[in-house]
């Protein structure tokens, strides 16, 4: 009988590069920047790392294929390195690989690292992906982009709950305003200017009904984690351990796209979060989750995700958002504590690990101006793909005794 991952693995070090338009740096420099911080934080030698997992998504325009870019950039001592790619869950997948490897007993200490160098393509937004969808799909799939794919969710969500689009737009605007406010407090964020609701609402349209400020930034960045067992962590002199409480992944199987779905929620997130709470021993997430970093690729994604994480009731996310329940000091569950994808941008392979980095800092009381009082559980969430067909990952980490 499977017992889940709860408290079997501890994070002993994390690193995160400066996110932004790193015109003068490639994926190699970004990875070394994150890794140097991580290794120092862990207080171990590079040679103590026995295996590594590497997340990157757009290998066509970034690092290239295989895990060699990591092994070469970090000059790892000929250890096993595995490249994983699962859309926007790629970073969390790397983390999952390293954590499971340690939990299995196959290795004592493992590294998870993610990177994406997006700003080498010559145009805004994510790299064009129609050619990366497979030879059959590229002959028939609609001419869609990431913002358009998610924008559609706003139309069906509004229809489902009988909301006027202006109400949804206002709640979405608050999502972005809140994240910008948090990002302004974070020296590693790409976008550090607070914005107003009016600015968000008046921004040029990207894909109806999403405006420019409903979309996350596009940035370069890298983040990484070193994991081991709690026992080894203690033997290394680590205190106040941060342990992995849950790791869940859920993928669409075509039901939403081709069978039955109202377009009002993420089937995968709903399932993965429920499984994650079970794995972590969390009964009431609205009360027990201290903070979250969710996949706010677009404001509407975050809005709907609040319901699929079973924190806002169905149809009630706009109200919770407008009530400030997800604001940093709103007395609820602070969301996008570090500024989110909104302010960090979304270097895909790095994002999951960047989210965990903030949770890790918070749990250790090292989050500076953003510090939340005595957090116990931090939840991270990625949603790769599109509302109708996606990969969802959830991670929960927390204090060992939580």
């Amino acid at each position: 009988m499977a017992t889940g991952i709860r408290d079997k693995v501890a994070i002993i070090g994390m690193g995160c590069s400066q996110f932004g338009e790193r015109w003068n740096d490639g994926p190699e420099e970004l990875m070394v920047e994150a890794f140097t911080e991580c290794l120092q934080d862990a207080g171990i030698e590079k040679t103590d790392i026995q295996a590594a997992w590497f997340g990157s998504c757009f290998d066509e325009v970034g690092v290239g294929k295989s895990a060699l870019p990591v092994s070469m950039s970090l000059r790892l001592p000929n250890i096993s390195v595995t490249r994983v790619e699962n859309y926007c869950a790629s970073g969390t997948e790397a983390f999952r690989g390293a954590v499971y490897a340690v939990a299995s007993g196959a290795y004592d200490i493992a590294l998870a690292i993610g990177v994406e160098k997006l700003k080498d393509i010559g145009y805004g937004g994510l790299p064009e992906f129609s050619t990366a969808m497979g030879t059959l799909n590229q002959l028939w799939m609609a001419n869609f982009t990431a913002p358009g794919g998610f924008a559609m969710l706003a139309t069906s969500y509004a229809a489902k709950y009988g909301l006027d689009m202006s109400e949804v737009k206002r709640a979405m605007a608050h999502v972005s305003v809140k994240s910008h406010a948090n990002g302004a407090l974070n020296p590693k964020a790409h976008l550090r200017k607070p914005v107003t609701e009016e600015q968000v609402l008046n921004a040029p349209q990207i894909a109806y009904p999403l405006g420019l400020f409903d979309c996350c930034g596009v940035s370069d960045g890298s983040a990484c984690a070193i994991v081991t067992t709690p026992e080894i962590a203690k033997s290394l002199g680590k205190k106040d351990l941060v342990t992995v409480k849950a790791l869940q992944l859920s993928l669409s199987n075509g039901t939403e796209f081709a069978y039955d779905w109202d377009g009002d929620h993420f089937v995968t997130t709903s399932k993965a979060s429920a499984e994650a709470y079970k794995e972590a021993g969390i009964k009431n997430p609205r009360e027990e989750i201290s903070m979250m970093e969710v996949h706010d690729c677009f404001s509407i994604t975050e809005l709907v995700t609040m319901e699929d994480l079973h924190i806002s009731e169905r149809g009630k996310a706009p109200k919770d958002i407008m009530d400030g329940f997800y604001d940093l000091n709103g007395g609820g569950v602070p969301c996008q504590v570090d500024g989110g994808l909104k302010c960090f941008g979304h270097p895909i392979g790095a994002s999951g690990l960047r989210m965990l980095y903030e949770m890790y800092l918070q749990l250790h009381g090292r989050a500076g101006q953003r510090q939340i009082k005595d957090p116990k559980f931090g939840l991270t969430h990625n949603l790769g793909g599109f509302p109708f067909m996606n990969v969802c990952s959830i991670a929960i980490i927390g204090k060992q005794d939580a």
Partner: protein
Amino acid sequence: MAGITSFGGYIPRYRLSRMVIVQNMAWYFPVIMAVAGGEKAVANWDEDSVSMAVAAAYDCMAGHDRKELDALYFASTTMPFADRLNAGIVAAALNMRENGVSNADFASCMKAGTTAMISALDSVQAGSRKNVLVTASDQRRTKMATMFEMFYGDGAAAVLIGNKDVVADYLGSYSINCDFVDHYRGQAKEFDYGYEERWVRDIGYGKVIPEAISGFLAQSGMKIGDFAKVIYPCYFGGTHKAIAAKLGIEKGRAQNNLHAVCGDTGTAHPLVMLVAALEEANPGDRLLVAGFGQGCDVLAFEVTEKIRDMKPRTGIKGSLANRVELTNYQKFTKFRNLITADLGIRGEANPNTSLTVLWRKRKMLLGLVGVRCKKCGTPQFPVYPTCVNPKCWSVNDFEDYEFSDKEAKILMFTGDMLSPSVDPPAVYGLIAFEGGGRTMFDFTDCDLNQIKVGMKTKMSFRRRQTDNMRGFTGYFWKAVPQVEGGDK
């Protein structure tokens, strides 16, 4: 008796007022002001002769089983492929049988449509085929500020030829073939090259058409007065009238050349005008139709009582009523690729089309054929070997299921300014078909501001991508939102 057993038509929804052309281009060539009246039909940027032929063919096949077709003929001078059977693309879009059928392209001449009809009628009369679908379609690009730009419109028509439940009996035909070159388009040339209009009017249309019609009358012993409508294309208004006078056609019996409402649709035009005439015809009416180009074909029909039993269709009348004015001349020139506008780096991706995939998935990609699970009855698209119904999940237990003629409802949609598009925003969404099945499609012929969740859609076969590097045109189906009462 052989004859027409069904008919259909398609005129694209955009109409360009000739005054718009004049306002934009008369500074360059003021002569175009002479024909500034009326409007011409303009194919959307994602339409071409093949896609319009498919639309006309579906319209024509309303109430008829596409599986019973023995042949499909496609007539056009603007076929996307010089070597690949263009009729084969139309046939695949109709999900026609592949075995035991004989499809063909009729090309290179304005009368190719009537010639295809004669061939189809001959084979049905001979008893070698039972049901032959004849489609004709043209979408001719013209240089800016030319008379061709003023005269030409886009459109398609289709007639089903058979010998059962004939709605218009075939009374015979007569043809003249001569190398009269009023205009031509050389190999690999983009545009028509025309000769002096005065000569084309007097020695071409004005002489050849009357000669051919007189020839038919002499051969058949019929009189011009026997015909309720005489149908012949001629975009010169004065010459059209002069031909009627010369032949002694009574007032009101010369079929309108549609110059005012759609322009001359080239190879399609004799069939477009014939379908327009059939839509108004009564049992007992005799129709004479002529196709002009390097000679002239003349065919005669007599409408039967069966015309009253035909299922409703859009036809020429219906598609003319589905009209949106294109007020932006630049948009028209961009649609026809006459001006260069930047699509952006995002639009550069240009993978080749996998012909192995296209072959393996031709029913899906060209016919919009999905499957229905034999166990649970769920229609589904796209097709995976395992049933999509989570309560079923049976494997490879399917029968073919056509989505091309199914209506659907919009579940979610957007208008995307980031997606590279000739006509931004790129509008697309997820739609659910009546009777089951759903998937995401590009939308076309629509205005984002009028789309709502829950709105009905119909499917339309469209050009999906043009690979200019390799000369390949790819097709797929798009959803057309059905805005009640038409849009602006």
